[in-house]
């Protein structure tokens, strides 16, 4: 893969192909975050589209102080907050069946049980408060550091740490039995 910094520079000069490569490289990260925030594929699709579109329009203002990944994730967070903050929506209404469908893991031996546990985990994550959900998603799925997450969420690193602690503690409480079973 080409150097992200180089792709960003060329995109700033209006190179559509480079921007397409940037989108391709970050699509999964953005979609996963949007999915966790919005709670369903349709909204996640809309949110990701809008985020990349805004990124294209604003890439001239991207100074490179942050990585492109944290910058685009921050756009997703901001869009989500301005769009849905007033609507008091909670993605936790997603049912187990939908959560199972979301995974789309290939079926196979013992995968059914793993899928079920994964679906329960997704539901439990979806039920977390928004900041905890976003922090955990970025840490666990995207491997971001506390500082990077703080940049995306616009929070202090200490706040992110507490959010991660509360999120993991809550998951441990909710999934205690399931987790013990799965690791036997």
């Amino acid at each position, binding site marked *: 893969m080409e150097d992200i910094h180089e792709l960003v520079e060329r995109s700033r000069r209006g190179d559509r192909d480079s921007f397409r490569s940037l989108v391709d490289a970050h699509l999964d990260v953005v979609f996963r975050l949007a999915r966790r925030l919005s709670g369903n594929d349709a909204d*996640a699709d809309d949110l990701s589209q809008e985020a990349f579109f805004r990124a294209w329009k604003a890439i001239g203002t991207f100074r490179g102080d942050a990585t492109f990944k944290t910058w685009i994730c921050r756009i997703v967070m901001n869009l989500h907050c301005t769009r849905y903050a007033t609507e008091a929506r909670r993605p936790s209404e997603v049912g187990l069946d939908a959560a199972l469908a979301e995974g789309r893991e290939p079926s196979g031996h013992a995968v059914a049980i793993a899928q079920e546990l994964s679906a329960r985990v*997704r539901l439990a994550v979806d039920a977390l408060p928004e900041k905890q959900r976003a922090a955990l998603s970025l840490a666990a799925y995207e491997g971001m550091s506390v500082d990077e997450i703080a940049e995306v969420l616009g929070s202090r690193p200490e706040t992110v740490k507490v959010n991660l602690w509360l999120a993991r503690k809550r998951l441990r409480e909710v999934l205690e039995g399931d987790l013990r079973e799965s690791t036997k």
Partner: protein
Amino acid sequence: MTCEEIEIALAADPRSSQEGAAVREHLAGCEACREALRGFERIDAVLGQARPAGPRDRAAFLRALDERIDHAASPRRVVPFLFRVAAAAAVFAVAWLAYRGLGTDAVAVVPPAPPAPPKAADRVVTTSELCVRVRSSDAAERSAALGEIGRRSDAVSRSLLVAALQDPRLAAEAVPIAGQVRLREAIPALSRIARDPALGASAVAALASIGGREAAAVLLRHLTEGPHVGAAREALRGMGDVALVALRERVQRARPVETAPLLDAVVALRAVDCLPWVASIAERSGASQADAIAALGALGDARAVGTLVRLSKERALHGMTIDALRAMGEAGARELARRVATGRRDDRVRAIQLLGELRDEASVRALVAALADPSVRADAARALGEIGDPASAPALAACLDDPSARSAAIEALGRVADASTVPLLARLSRDPSLRRDILRILGETGAPEALPHLVRALGSRDTAAVAAEGLALLGESAIPSLIRALSAGNTAGRAREALVAISSVDLGDDPGAWQRWWRDRRSTPNLSSRPLAGPGSVTSSGVGTST
């Protein structure tokens, strides 16, 4: 460091935080924190497996983004804000003035239309020319210009199309084009047009083509107001998940006046996610309660059964809940059948009663299984009687030994019995304690197969009366046997009663007189085709034609 500080450090990064000396030292001496760490590591392992996938159709996503960017200008360089505002205003002003200029001299920015232009296909038509052509008095030229505007993706063309939607002369043609090019900027204008009786349906279709959350939200508004409720409902039905999500959000802030149309929409879109909202309306007495109960049934989701069972206890709502459960079809009956087998006795009895009222033959197996439980046996027997499936007769017969369920089982047998159950009933009639009831049931079957058993019972003092009643219920097919029974001293009296009940005439105890009457009746076409009055309609003795 305290345990809480250690936990926070571990939760922030379960792996690298262990590298710190203070954390390592604390962990070595604290089992609680070691357990916390193990818990976090287990969570991370499972989270890794539960990592969500990317978008379902990656290629479609990238294509759609490309199209959006095509519509937009190049990425903005860092330019002063005021300059950007001024530039945007200038673009809009050019488009707007060009469109609204209406050909007056005052609008110098619109160049005059070129004289007798060649065919549009022969050369590139400028946007300015399109501004003029779209206002042409020639309908064909207007139409062609609108089509060309629709094919373009620049900001001025999009503004022109939005402006055309607001012009009564152009709106009819502009509406479908806005839909075809999925022009999101057109949504507010289309929303206004959707209220128009003539163009509304077309605007609704265009909104559906544009798709997305915003269009879905607008269409949902038109479900509760305006002349095109049906079209909006159909459009939303075609929009899939987006419409469902918008509907779910909409119902959460529905005003009371919007409840009825939103219930219709929930049913039309089969939005089972809205079930909690529908259930909350169904449980509140009010103008929409009946609609909500019906909607619970129409959604066909078994999760609504609990609410319906609760509501069925209210006398005024009972009929509605039965209708809803019936509308729910197999899902409702299956859930009730599941509730027959589990839970508190009261709830099980309620489910049994409802299955009986639903008269769903598919529930027979669950109810027969419930007969094995003495605590609900009588209720299950009654429900089986309501359903009336003869196949349940052997199971009901097996309950006759239970004194607490006997009367319910006998009543149920009476309801399920038919010709196929006569051999079973005949066997049961040998039991002296059951004989009278079973003979009555045999008569109620109306089956000719029951005749010999009833005639035989006429000879017993104990059972003669009930056998005569049973024979009377069999009607004309019993007459020859009854006339023969007149000759036997111990059966004559009851046989005569039965003959009178069937024929409505009383010819006494003389078998010959009855024989002649019967022969006459069969040989007289008018009489033989006329049904006999049957039991309970005897008018007076001696009435007849035998003399």
